[in-house]
């Protein structure tokens, strides 16, 4: 049974405010990728985030 779509169509002012700041070029780029490529990109982003966290940790230890 298909779920009602009413919830999706209800406007939420906070969500609408966030929408103004969403980078649509990023979305368009991602939509041009295959699902596989989107997951590869996510894993690269995770690696990068881990590197940043490690760098931050080391910097704090030096202080």
């Amino acid at each position, binding site marked *: *049974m*298909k*779920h009602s*779509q009413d*919830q*999706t169509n*209800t406007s*939420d002012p*906070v*969500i*609408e405010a*966030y*929408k103004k700041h*969403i*980078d*649509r070029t*990023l*979305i*368009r780029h*991602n*939509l041009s*990728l295959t*699902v*596989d490529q*989107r*997951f*590869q990109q*996510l*894993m690269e*982003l*995770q*690696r990068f*985030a*881990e590197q940043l966290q490690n760098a931050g940790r080391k910097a704090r230890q030096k202080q």
Partner: protein
Amino acid sequence: MTDFAALIPLLVANDVEFIIVGGAAATAHGSARLTLDLDVVYSRDNVNLERIVRALAPSQPYLRGAPPGLPFEWSVETLKKGLNFTLITTLGALDLLGEIVGGGGYDELKPETIKIEVAGAECMCLSLQRLIEVKRAAGRPKDLEAIAELEQILEEARQA
């Protein structure tokens, strides 16, 4: 790091019945947001529980964030006793969800999925429309920005 390209094919190769939801589903639909774990809604069928246990056993599942050394036994009995499991494995973070707020369980969500392919493995992913509805129903403040992006994706996809 969660190795989505290994975890998803591992579940598929073991015939596990699951649906990708949450941030990973958002990624599949084109989200640019960082998500750290793989969230799946799984069938609570006994046979499926056996498949999950068999599939993940080599990856040493353990309760994520829990102190080491707890008497956590990875077994069908353990899965039967619980519903949602937040796990860490050697392949990364995996949330096994028996149900999700606003969405229900595997059988309720299955008609609202799309088929996707990840690292050569075909699996089910919650549809974009339903993912938005579920996130809205969950009502978590942290999801509001994610919902905004998903709705923009939906709009872009409709225009394409």
